[in-house]
């Protein structure tokens, strides 16, 4: 066997292993969301996580993959592939690459279920889940990872002439997480708060989740899954450059997660007199989401700084969305994935050691990051507004008050989780 061949096999195995780890984030999300919500809705929220992955797998294979990677990045959207993968030419086996991209797409989709928990019609959630995997995610994915205009580095392209550099999102702070987070916020806003969440004077009330044990296990599982999400996005392991890169990314990913949790822990300790476990769990995820865009470009110290900033901003973001905006997001998905996804993308423009503003490389890259995140999230927001308010208008997003009070498990599915 040729050395080149072995190298390619090594890269393939690494990509497939990473895809499996990212798949493992699905149970992480499922447990995290189940734990942060009440036991009468557990079957429903677990089911929604399965729906995201099942529909994501089928739709992304059949058309989403073509939308994202077809037409060689030209235009608004690629051509649908109708289950035919032969259009794609790359060194890595296309079926493995499709699996790798599928798990990322499903991650973006599943972020929303937590924010819309405990009050959404199951049938309407299925429609949302299909639309994000069919259209919302593949389109902005086409603009970026699909080789489209935001990441087109050919001389004379829009990004290189405007900013001197292209938009950079290594593993998806913007492309995967902020899109899911923005949709989560709009979904929760369109739905309205859970019954009993706010008093008639508009004061926020706590609705404790039924198991912080499940939530904690979910967060640990997500943390592990991220070790595939970020280092796997190198899409290669062989050779000195790649083995150094994936090791570096694993380290930066872990440091950001740890400092995110620590930041939230100390801030809540100061703010509330006691360190808040439920928020610290979000803080770890905030650090992970934040580092995802620049995990390859920042130093370990930069990664710790990004995690810390995200862990701290998270607390204020959750408070602002809950107490000021009165948008009821039971698991904090809009803050963790939306706000920290945006923050991580922007901080990459400052803290990249090779092109960041803080390292004396000027503001061009930061500008590219600002522009990229703005375009991507405007797209997500526009789609979200049309989708969720459209459904709300035509069919209604929300279950009846009685179903909400007695639990979605019984009325939507006819079976309960705890018997």
């Amino acid at each position, binding site marked *: 066997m040729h050395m080149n061949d072995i190298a390619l096999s090594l890269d393939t195995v690494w990509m497939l292993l990473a895809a499996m780890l990212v798949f493992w984030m699905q149970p992480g999300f499922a447990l995290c969301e189940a734990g942060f919500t009440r036991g009468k809705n557990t079957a429903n929220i677990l089911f929604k996580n399965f729906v995201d992955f099942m529909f994501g797998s089928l739709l992304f294979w059949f058309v989403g993959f073509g939308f994202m990677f077809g037409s060689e990045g030209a235009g608004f959207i690629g051509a649908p592939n109708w289950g035919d993968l032969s259009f794609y030419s790359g060194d890595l086996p296309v079926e493995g690459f499709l699996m790798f991209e599928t798990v990322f797409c499903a991650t973006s989709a599943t972020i929303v279920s937590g924010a819309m928990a405990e009050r959404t019609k199951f049938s309407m959630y299925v429609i949302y889940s299909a639309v994000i995997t069919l259209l919302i995610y593949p389109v902005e994915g086409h603009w970026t990872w699909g080789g489209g205009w935001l990441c087109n580095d050919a001389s004379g392209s829009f990004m290189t002439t405007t900013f001197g550099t292209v938009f950079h999102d290594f593993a998806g702070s913007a492309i995967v997480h902020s899109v899911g987070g923005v949709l989560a916020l709009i979904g929760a806003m369109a739905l309205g708060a859970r019954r009993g969440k706010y008093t008639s004077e508009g004061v926020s009330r706590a609705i404790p989740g039924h198991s912080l044990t499940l939530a904690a296990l979910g967060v640990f599982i997500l943390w592990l899954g991220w070790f595939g999400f970020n280092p796997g996005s190198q899409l290669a392991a062989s050779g000195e450059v790649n083995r150094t890169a994936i090791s570096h990314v694993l380290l930066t990913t872990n440091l950001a997660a740890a400092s995110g949790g620590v930041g939230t822990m100390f801030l*809540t300790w100061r703010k509330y007199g006691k360190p808040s476990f439920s928020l610290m769990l979000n803080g770890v995820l905030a650090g992970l989401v934040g580092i995802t865009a620049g995990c390859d470009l920042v130093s370990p110290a930069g990664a710790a700084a990004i995690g810390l900033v995200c862990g701290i901003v998270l607390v204020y973001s959750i408070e602002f969305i809950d107490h000021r905006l009165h948008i009821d997001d039971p698991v904090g998905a809009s803050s963790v994935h939306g706000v920290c996804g945006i923050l991580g993308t922007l901080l990459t423009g400052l803290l990249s050691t090779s092109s960041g503003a803080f390292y004396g490389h000027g503001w061009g890259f930061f500008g590219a990051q600002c522009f990229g995140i703005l375009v991507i999230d405007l797209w997500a927001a526009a789609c979200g507004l049309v989708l969720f308010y459209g459904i709300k208008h035509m069919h209604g997003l929300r279950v009846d008050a009685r179903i909400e009070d007695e639990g979605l498990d019984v009325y939507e599915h006819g079976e309960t989780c705890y018997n």
Partner: protein
Amino acid sequence: MKRIEAIIRKTKFEDVKEALLRSDIDWFEYHDVHGIGQSRQERIYRGVQYSTDVIERVALAIVCRDHFVEPTVRVIAETAHTGEVGDGRIFVSDIIDTWSIRTGEHGDTVLRDKK
């Protein structure tokens, strides 16, 4: 025949259980109870501070013959005592009759125990 119902601290349950077994009570039932009282505990969940008025206690119930009431009550009262507010209450009420499902007999003798 009387029914003794005691609401005690969860932390005292093991002590009271041992003491009751030592004083030859051969059966009692218990369950976790949630009470609502005037004392409140501060909690924080995901950045929302709130106070809960739910107080968790264990309730035990023992049905026994009249002459066991006083020593049983004394055992519970002594073992469950801490002196702090919230030690609990003991209620004694009359039982009209008791039937044994196995033998079909009823009345005072069904509660014949080791004593």
